[in-house]
């Protein structure tokens, strides 16, 4: 009886000849993408540079850390395959493409060389960084937007990027503003704000989430307790724990760490900046 596997492999190899490919590098991580669908290729290729503002370069399709593939199968379903393993199947490409771009961004965030990515909003005020770690749908973008409108420099509404010395670097993607179930990518200039261009030391780490009627009182916590809480939002903690903890320690040791349940962003951002100035500047 013949072994079907080599035959299947040959079919796949033949199929792959028709794929379109692109490779890039961001933060020292090399990622490759391939697909047999022209529309998906165009969309992903167009979107990739915007995923990593200021840190994207084209690279060849070899020595990739991860390979992402979208295969349009004979039943017209789109299969997302990550490093040779089927991740998901979708009948449409709109959400599949978005999902793929999220996966790619997170992979780079996890494996970035010499950087630690926190899932956090980030701004700078008078030369010091303010980091707001929080999960999705917890109001990071709203609060960052309110701070930017008050004159803070925009660093990111998604990632706080820290270097080995614990300094905060800009990751100025467009703000993802949600409204009525939709998400709109909004350049910071549309809010009347400016993006930061240089790294700054971190002065303040704020652990907060929106709560209707929240008092907005800020309660300081110890660096150790703060570090423990920040770990929940630290992308590479499992991938590279030693370097990650060293960087977080350097960052948090020099910063004020506070917790709060906040009410409306407009009011809270004013209170936050006053607190920041009183304690740090």
């Amino acid at each position, binding site marked *: 009886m013949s072994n079907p596997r080599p035959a299947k492999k040959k079919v796949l190899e033949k199929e792959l000849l028709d794929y379109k490919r692109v490779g890039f590098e961001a933060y020292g991580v090399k990622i490759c993408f391939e697909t047999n669908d022209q529309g998906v290729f165009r969309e992903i290729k167009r979107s990739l540079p915007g995923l990593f503002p200021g840190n994207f370069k084209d690279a060849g399709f070899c020595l990739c850390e991860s390979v992402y593939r979208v295969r349009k199968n004979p039943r017209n379903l789109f299969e997302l395959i990550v490093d040779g393993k089927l991740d*998901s199947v979708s009948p449409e490409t709109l959400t*599949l493409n978005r999902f793929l771009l999220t996966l790619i961004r997170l992979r780079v965030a996890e494996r970035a060389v010499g950087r630690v990515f926190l899932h956090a909003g980030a701004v700078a005020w008078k030369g010091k960084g303010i980091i707001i770690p929080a999960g999705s749908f917890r109001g990071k973008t709203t609060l960052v937007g309110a701070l930017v409108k008050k004159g803070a420099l925009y660093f990111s509404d998604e990632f706080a990027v820290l270097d080995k010395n614990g300094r905060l670097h800009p990751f100025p993607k467009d703000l993802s503003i949600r409204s009525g179930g939709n998400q709109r990518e909004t350049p910071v200039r549309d809010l009347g704000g400016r993006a930061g261009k240089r790294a700054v030391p971190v002065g303040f780490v704020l652990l907060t989430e929106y709560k209707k009627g929240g008092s907005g009182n800020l309660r300081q916590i110890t660096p150790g307790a703060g570090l423990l809480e920040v770990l929940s939002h630290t992308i590479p903690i499992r991938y590279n724990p*030693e370097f990650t903890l060293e960087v977080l*320690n350097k960052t948090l040791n020099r910063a004020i760490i506070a917790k709060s349940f906040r009410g409306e962003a407009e009011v809270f951002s004013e209170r936050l900046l006053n607190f920041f100035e009183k304690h740090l500047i």
Partner: protein
Amino acid sequence: MKSSETPVARKNGLVVQEVADEVLVYDLDTNKAHCLNETAAMVWRNCDGTRTVSDISKVVEGKLGGKVNEDLIWLALDQLGEKDLLEEKRELSFSGRSRREVIRKIGLATAVAIPLVASLTTPTSVLAAASCACTAGNPAPCAATTCPSTTNCNLAGQCAP
């Protein structure tokens, strides 16, 4: 465990960061992080296999400047053992008293902070930790998240109603 025994802090498979007076310990085997407050950290640092519980209480007393009862050291060892931060995990005895009773007694007898070890398991999935993204009709990535919905992927590709 008796007062004459000499507890040993675990060293292997841990990443340790001194964070001001506290210590952050990351367990590479379980991906759990533990924050030891000043008192717990001091007890843990002195579990060197040569010091007895009585010796440790004297060291802590000298450094923290308050009267330290041996029960306080037991309380710290109890938590450290429970979190797998000691080489040997043993049943500790508070002489028939509950942990709560011991804490109350220590609290009245000393100005030194009660030893505390707070813990957290780091998120398994980067995607779950940092995104609510999914592909429409496939809510599987939502299951392990804290997104607005853990069972629905909406038409915008978000784990939300």
